[in-house]
């Protein structure tokens, strides 16, 4: 099991990797093996695990007092006030138990060059760039800070950057290999015309993908009808065969007599319809247009966002998510009405609360949520280690007007819902995956410590050792 104790001295996992030798890499290898077995919790997880706390936050704003939790094979199998620890179960107690934090916008666990690349397309996959080795240190710190899952992207320098994944910080293992397609409309230093141009290019790409999807659908129906016709024709022909043969034999006979070749009857039939030329990029983008996966678009400024909201109206099935959105307040009503969530990144670097500028800084989250927009809080994929700040960012958002439950939602249930994982993680219920935190106090309070991090039923961090 790959569980690092929190570092008490200046020793990094590398050292441990070395000292523990292969045993550790076995862990990493194992987790990578689960690439195939997607989102199923690791069956080889530790034995029974029993958690107890004075307060269990089952979902934002809803908590139960003095509960026990039983974790088995990576899942929460029982919850109850008078639930007792079974024989031989590892027991961890704390003040608060809640769902693990999920960073909806991160590059942690992704190979750095792929994360920064500008050479990716819609068919590129974040799962191809997961690096459990190179970012040992970073991932280790995430486990300690309670951020156990991230939605990761690649190609932060590309306008459209392909299929992102939701991964566990523990070994950078995928939970969901196709979490979202992501695009960017924030190329710095462009003049207004080309800024709008960016949006139009995105729009036409979406349009192209939609057409490709339609063509494919059309081909499939055509093929169906053609096959039916041909089948019919074939049965007819088989029925008429004897007659046809007689006729021919006759001809042949006559032919023999006046020594000339038989002229065969010309046979005609409709050609088999051919599929549209295969295009991996379009095929991938089409899934976002069709709403199979969310479409996350990083946009900060008003011009782009206004344009974007306009051009995307026709794509009714697309599930759009705005990332960044410093100017989102200006369009709060439309965002709320169209149910478009916003991943706010209250970067400490944004000049605070200064309304001379368009950037409301830390107050953005609070004000958007007050206007009925679903707010997620993400670390902004600026660097792999940035995700570590997630609970701090959420807390700071509370300090600037966001409701405490909304802030908690923004880094747990929210991301889980937006990226179709609510049936697995993001809240604490029987049957859900055991991705949990045991805390010494309220999740967002600065004086709270993460006592234990449980990822897919495994204890991946425990304070003190």
């Amino acid at each position, binding site marked *: 099991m790959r569980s690092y104790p929190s570092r008490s001295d200046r020793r990094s996992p590398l050292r441990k990797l070395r000292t523990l030798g292969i045993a550790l890499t076995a862990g990493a290898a194992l987790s990578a093996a689960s690439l195939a077995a997607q989102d199923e919790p690791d069956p080889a997880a530790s034995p029974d695990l029993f958690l107890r706390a004075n307060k269990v936050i089952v979902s934002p704003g809803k908590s139960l007092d003095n509960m026990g939790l039983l974790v088995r094979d990576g899942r929460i199998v029982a919850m109850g006030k008078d639930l007792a620890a079974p024989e031989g179960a590892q027991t961890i107690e704390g003040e608060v138990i809640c769902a693990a934090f999920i960073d909806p916008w991160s590059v942690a666990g992704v190979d750095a060059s792929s994360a920064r690349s500008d050479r990716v397309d819609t068919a590129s996959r974040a799962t191809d760039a997961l690096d459990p080795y190179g970012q040992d240190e970073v991932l280790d710190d995430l486990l300690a800070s309670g951020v156990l899952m991230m939605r990761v992207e690649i190609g932060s320098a590309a306008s459209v950057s392909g299929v992102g994944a939701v991964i566990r910080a523990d070994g950078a293992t995928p939970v969901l290999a196709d979490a979202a397609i992501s695009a960017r409309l924030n190329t710095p230093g462009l003049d207004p015309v080309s800024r709008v141009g960016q949006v139009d290019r995105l729009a036409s790409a979406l349009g192209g993908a939609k057409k490709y999807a339609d063509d494919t659908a059309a081909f499939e129906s055509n093929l169906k009808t053609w096959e039916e016709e041909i089948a019919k024709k074939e049965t007819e022909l088989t029925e008429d065969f004897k007659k046809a043969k007689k006729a021919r034999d006759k001809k042949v006979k006559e032919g023999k007599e006046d020594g000339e070749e038989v002229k065969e009857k010309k046979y005609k039939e409709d050609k088999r319809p051919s599929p549209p030329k295969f295009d991996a990029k379009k095929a991938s983008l089409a899934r976002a247009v069709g709403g199979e996966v969310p479409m996350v678009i990083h946009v900060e400024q008003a011009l782009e966002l206004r344009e974007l909201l306009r051009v995307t109206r026709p794509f009714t099935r697309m599930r759009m998510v705005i990332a960044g959105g410093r100017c989102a307040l200006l369009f709060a009503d439309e965002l709320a009405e169209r149910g478009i969530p916003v991943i706010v990144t209250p*970067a400490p670097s944004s000049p*605070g*609360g200064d*309304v001379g500028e368009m950037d409301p800084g830390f107050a953005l989250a609070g004000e958007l949520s007050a206007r009925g927009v679903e707010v997620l809080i993400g670390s902004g994929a600026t660097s792999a*280690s*940035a995700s570590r700040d997630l609970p701090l960012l959420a*807390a700071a958002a509370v300090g*600037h007007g966001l409701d405490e439950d909304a802030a908690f939602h923004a880094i747990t249930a929210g991301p889980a819902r937006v990226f179709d994982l609510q049936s697995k993680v993001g809240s604490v219920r029987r049957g859900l995956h055991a991705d949990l935190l045991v805390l010494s106090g309220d999740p967002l309070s600065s*004086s*709270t410590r993460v006592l234990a991090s449980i990822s897919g039923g495994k204890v991946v961090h425990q304070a003190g050792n």
Partner: protein
Amino acid sequence: MLISCLIAAAPLLGATAADDAFALRASHVHVGDGQVVLDAFVVVEDGVVKSVSNNAPRGVRVVEVDGHIAPGFISLRETLGAGSENSERTRKSTPTADLSFAFDPTSPSWKGLVAEGVTTVLLPAGSSQIAGGQAAIVSPAAGEVLKRNAVVTLGLSRSALGSSTAPTSFAGLYAHLGEQFDAASEGSPLADAKAGKVPVMMRAVTRSEVSRALDFAAAHGLKGAVLGAPEADDLVDEIKASGLGVVFESKAAPASSQDVVKSALALSKAEVPFAFTSDAGSQGPLGMRMQAAACMRAGLEAGAALRAMTADAARIAGVDATHGTIATGRAADLVVWSGPPTDLTSRVHSVYAGGHLVHSAHAHGAHQ
């Protein structure tokens, strides 16, 4: 948002008439040295704290505030408003330069900083000079210089070395600095630093830069602090022995820079005074609190975190007689919080600088 800003803007123009005497009553009063007085009255007179006690003062207007009162935060480096005016490029050393003249009181960005509860700021010289000048301590809210020639700033990191200007080597740097100190005439800044009258702030980043700086400080009997030193925990014994403090530079995300977090914990364990910087220009006004909160989530006590942003910061800057704590005779730089001041989830209700209300988050709230 808009309203609050207008409110905040007003005092900066010095428009409010100061209450010459009033008292604030709060459920918690954080003195700044670690202790907390419950349900206390803070009496302010002529911009100075007159008393902190549990019994109501007579004859002064009492303002009930709901929440916690804490000393205004002190940032030990802030280049906001100074822009690039804080380092002289033509010379490697300008020890007598006075940073108070780099202070731009009208810079709009100060508002953001005040709104985060920072009432006192140290303006040091940039790190590209070796002896860049004397840092000034200013009140961004009042737009005033509180103390000139407060701290001598020294740049002992690689960024003080030139690639095609002398010195290019640490040997050259220390030779140069040595000469500066030896040549320092009575009463000059460097002489005062040697005499221990004025604290120094030496920027040193890598461990070897820090240990060289410590040696130099020991050789010349300097007091004050090292600025930078993210890996201070690796040198905690040496630093403890040197009697110097450490000022951590707030980093861009992640604020929970593990180096700084580990170092802060180690220093606090060894009882070495340390402080943070806000660097709002690059890190935003919250950088300082984020860093402190990161340390707390890793185990630093709230009291220690608050000290680092108030009392200890004042001590390092040599202004602990007037700032950094809520006690009789100290400047009335007070911040009213919705909860514990070190908790990121707490909001700033109102900010007083020298007894003036300089920021109020909501039209209602602090004042009934």
